[in-house]
């Protein structure tokens, strides 16, 4: 069970959950395999699924247009069955930076990206991302240049969000797999830029097909 900082009574709820779980198993309402299956299902989506959508959008302008118009349908094109009502895709540009937060709880496109990072759920991030997004981004190592407009999206209801980060420079000749490696989980909520990671550069250097 996830306990967030400052969440008074976390022990009580953890204990009650455990007690209920045992009772359901004892009385045969739930089989251990049911729980394992559900956990496996929840753990399956991950960063790479979202990163594939981003990398495809960088390579294919038509796909990008479809992704911006309808994130769910664009996900389905690549074989991802997105369960949320809608995925609104937010494009970062040199003049506009999008940042996603759920101030009320921890809404996140879980059927595509899996479970959110711990800091996304923290009360500190939730409170500060709407109030001082520039300070939060700077502390995360991502100070925004002067003149960039910031748009914060409070994911408080039925929509879910995916940030389309800017393609890193120097990746013009890269294939989709290597491009997807540049897209971190944090980049897809706007908390980090897409970055060329050193391992990817090394792989590319040792592989003659990736000039």
């Amino acid at each position: 069970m996830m306990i967030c900082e400052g969440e008074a009574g976390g022990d009580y709820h953890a204990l009650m959950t455990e007690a209920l779980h045992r009772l359901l198993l004892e009385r045969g309402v739930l089989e251990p395999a049911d729980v394992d299956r559900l956990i496996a299902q929840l753990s399956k989506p991950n960063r790479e699924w979202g990163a594939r959508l981003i990398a495809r959008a960088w390579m294919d302008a038509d796909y990008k247009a479809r992704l911006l118009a309808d994130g769910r349908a664009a996900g389905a094109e690549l074989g991802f069955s997105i369960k949320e009502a809608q995925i609104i895709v937010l494009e970062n540009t040199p003049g506009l930076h999008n940042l996603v937060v759920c101030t009320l709880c921890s809404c996140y496109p879980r059927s595509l990206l899996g479970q959110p990072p711990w800091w996304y759920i923290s009360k500190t991030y939730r409170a500060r991302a709407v109030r001082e997004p520039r300070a939060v981004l700077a502390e995360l190592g991502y100070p925004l240049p002067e003149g960039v407009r910031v748009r914060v999206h409070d994911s408080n209801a039925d929509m879910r969000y995916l940030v389309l980060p800017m393609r890193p420079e120097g990746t013009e000749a890269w294939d989709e797999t290597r491009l997807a490696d540049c897209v971190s989980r944090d980049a897809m909520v706007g908390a980090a830029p897409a970055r060329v990671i050193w391992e990817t550069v090394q792989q590319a250097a040792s592989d003659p097909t990736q000039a």
Partner: protein
Amino acid sequence: MPRFAAGDRVRILDLPKTGHIRVPDYVRGAVGAIERHCGTYANPEELAYGRPDPARVDLYRVRIAQAALWAGAPASDELDIEIYDHWLEPVA
């Protein structure tokens, strides 16, 4: 037919409701503009309590200047937030 269209100016109401409310305090009373109509969804204020056949309500995204929410916020910055129809009133 949704009550508002993109660009319409609206005020977010401060309704005296408790329970599973999806309107955070910091936007109550704020004036912004409709960014888009998102469709109609089961009212979470009923859905959260397992009520049968919860009413379906229009959901909008409302764009608000950060400076209207927080003193000293840069004039360029904005907040987009999802608000259900019954939490909105038109602003002339």
